């Protein structure tokens, strides 16, 4: 605890963010806002006024902490970077974890203080409406842990992104927070965003189901967000003191473990009884592949890291660099996919049109598809194109769009569509299986091998001495 209180980075933020005049201004603004919300809530909501007021205040706290704190984190690190102070911090004897924790807790201090100023208003709402203070405490805890995760994500983005891209990153961050308010129908859990829980305070929430166990929604949110925050913080700590050009989000083993953790959570909350084996397995694969694709994108090596690795390609593990990040992502997809097939086989009661063998085929296909896309993206990332990664993603999307259009025009059968993209798997079941499905599997493998060959040549060029 002493280590935390004496953390110089945290102390620096405390000094800068919590100056008396600034605190007084924040307190006054919060008091005025509370009053205005109270007048509005009590003016129009009749008997439900207290509940209405309570929800407004708690949602405001959640927004301040999540969105406000996240943006504060993002721009605080960017400001330090622009002022070159980030380099000076990296030169100090502060260990990366201490620096990261100091930034995580310190950068959004103003948001914490503003949320704290609204606590009396929330308590007024609870006691005026006769609601359980425990429900409020549980919601606050979920909001707090969710905010930690958001702040850790913002910190990670800030460490990796520089200059004007920070504004775009801020928009993505807000979009990600907004996206998490959506409830995924295939899962037996409420929306991931704690702001939704804050908006529902005062009414009993249906419990989530995790591997058959009924768990209060807020508790599951706390556990999930604590895990997410820990993984994000790990990535920040790994990279905070490194050369920005040599950043590597996770080690291969960490990436594999992260994807397996995500798959475990998805597997646990999948609504097997309601969806049946085939739709359940499809939904699991789709969610798992989407998260694996996104993580794969974040794991791509930049030119400097690739150059350094390329110069050491004589090592036996050289093939790993050639295929990066496909091995970690495809392995996680395979392990999680097989676990999904086993669970669907034994846990789902409705097994209409389901075959474990077809399920395993889908897993193999998705693994190869991910490998194809990610090896291609890693190759294009290191080409001399302007904005190579963005160009590569756009070209890939163009390929998907054109492919779908052409195949749609000719009413191509599902196996032919699967050559281009994996949405064709939605048409694959035990009844529709034919040996023709092996063709897209082979094409994915061939394309992945082709891009791996291009990578090999590229790495040979990159590894050559600078003249």
């Amino acid at each position, binding site marked *: 605890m002493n280590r935390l209180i004496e953390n*110089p980075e945290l102390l*620096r933020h405390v000094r800068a*963010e919590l100056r008396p005049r600034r605190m007084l201004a924040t307190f006054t603004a919060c008091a005025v806002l509370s009053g205005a919300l109270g007048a509005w809530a009590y003016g129009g909501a009749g008997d439900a006024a207290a509940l209405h007021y309570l929800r407004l205040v708690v949602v405001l706290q959640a927004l301040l902490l999540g969105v406000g704190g996240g943006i504060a984190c993002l721009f605080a690190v960017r*400001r330090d970077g622009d002022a070159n102070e980030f380099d000076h*911090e*990296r030169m*100090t004897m502060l260990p990366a974890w201490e620096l990261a924790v100091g930034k995580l807790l310190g950068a959004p201090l103003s948001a914490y203080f503003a949320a704290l100023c609204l606590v009396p208003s929330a308590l007024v709402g609870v006691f005026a409406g006769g609601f359980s203070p425990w429900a409020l405490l549980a919601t606050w805890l979920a909001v707090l842990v969710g905010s930690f995760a958001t702040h850790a994500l913002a910190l990670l983005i800030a460490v990796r992104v520089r200059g004007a891209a920070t504004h775009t990153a801020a928009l993505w961050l807000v979009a990600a927070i907004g996206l998490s308010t959506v409830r995924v129908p295939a899962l037996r859990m409420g929306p991931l965003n704690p702001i939704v829980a804050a908006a529902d305070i005062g009414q009993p929430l249906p419990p989530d189901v995790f591997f058959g166990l009924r768990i209060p929604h807020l508790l599951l949110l706390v556990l999930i967000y604590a895990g997410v925050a820990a993984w994000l913080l790990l990535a920040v700590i790994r990279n905070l003191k490194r*050369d920005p*050009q040599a950043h590597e989000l996770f080690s291969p083993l960490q990436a594999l473990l992260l994807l397996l953790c995500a798959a475990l959570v998805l597997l646990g909350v999948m609504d097997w009884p309601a969806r049946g084996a085939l739709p359940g397995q499809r939904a699991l694969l789709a969610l798992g592949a989407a998260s694996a694709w996104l993580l794969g994108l974040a794991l791509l090596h930049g030119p400097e890291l690739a150059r350094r690795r390329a110069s050491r390609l004589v090592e036996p593990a050289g093939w790993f660099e050639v295929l990066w990040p496909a091995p970690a992502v495809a392995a996680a997809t395979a392990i999680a996919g097989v676990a999904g097939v086993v669970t669907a086989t034994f846990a789902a009661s409705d097994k209409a049109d389901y075959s474990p063998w077809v399920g395993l085929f889908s897993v193999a296909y998705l693994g190869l598809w991910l490998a194809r896309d990610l090896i291609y993206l890693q190759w294009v990332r290191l080409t001399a194109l302007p904005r190579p990664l963005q160009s590569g993603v756009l070209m890939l999307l163009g390929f998907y769009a054109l492919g779908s259009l052409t195949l749609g025009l000719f009413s191509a059968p599902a196996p032919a569509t699967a050559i281009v993209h994996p949405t064709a798997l939605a048409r694959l079941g035990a009844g529709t299986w034919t040996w023709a499905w092996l063709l897209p599997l082979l094409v994915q493998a061939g394309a992945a091998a082709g891009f791996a060959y291009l990578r090999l040549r590229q790495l040979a060029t990159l590894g050559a001495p*600078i003249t």
Partner: protein
Amino acid sequence: MQHPATEPSAWTRRLREKTRSVAVRIEGLCKQYDSPAGVALHNVTMEITAGEVFALVGADGAGKSTVLKLICGLLTPTAGRVTINNLDVERERDEVQAAIGYLGSPFGMYSGALVWEYLDYFARAHGLPPDSASARVAALLDRFRLTGARDARVEGLSRATKLLLGVARALVHDPPLLLLDEPTLGLDARGRALLKRVLTDEHHHGKTIVLTSPTLTDLDVNCDTVRILEHGRLLPADRAEKILQEAASIGEIP
């Protein structure tokens, strides 16, 4: 007046013990940035001996800042290596960084911090206990004639005062090796005189000082060695010597 308040850290002491012969050795150093900067350094090899004042001169974009950042371990070399008394900077970054005082360029400062808070933060971040940190901050403020600005906000300071504060910050943990990137840029005559005095003081106390400058005339400090970087390549010592002699003959350098 040499900062009586602080004892050097164990790491710094260890490094100082080793800093007798060669302070910094740079071998075949290459650095390639992601576009658009491209290759910043081509096969740079040089030695900076312990206790000398070493100046690296070159136009903007010549690669001076990159060399300093590579010595600091803030950047990793694309090829080649930097050692500080046989400690590889890339492998033993933490230990090496504890012995370096670095002033980057261009140079801003934390918004919202007061002058004493700024120095106090870096003193604590370099492992000084709070009491020693306060004493060290007071000593540095006095030495750099910043005591009057102790409670001023750093963003309100003039560029010259900020630079002096930056040099004070680089000295906060009393490192044996000082790396200053264009320390005289934007300094007025008084600031230059003060900086020169401080650096001469530090030099007399055995510190190795590496500084960069875009022009020869900016080198107010008496340098033991001057090397010239041109488009990421280090000019041979004899050629640099010739340029320096020519500059001296027309009064460009003292």
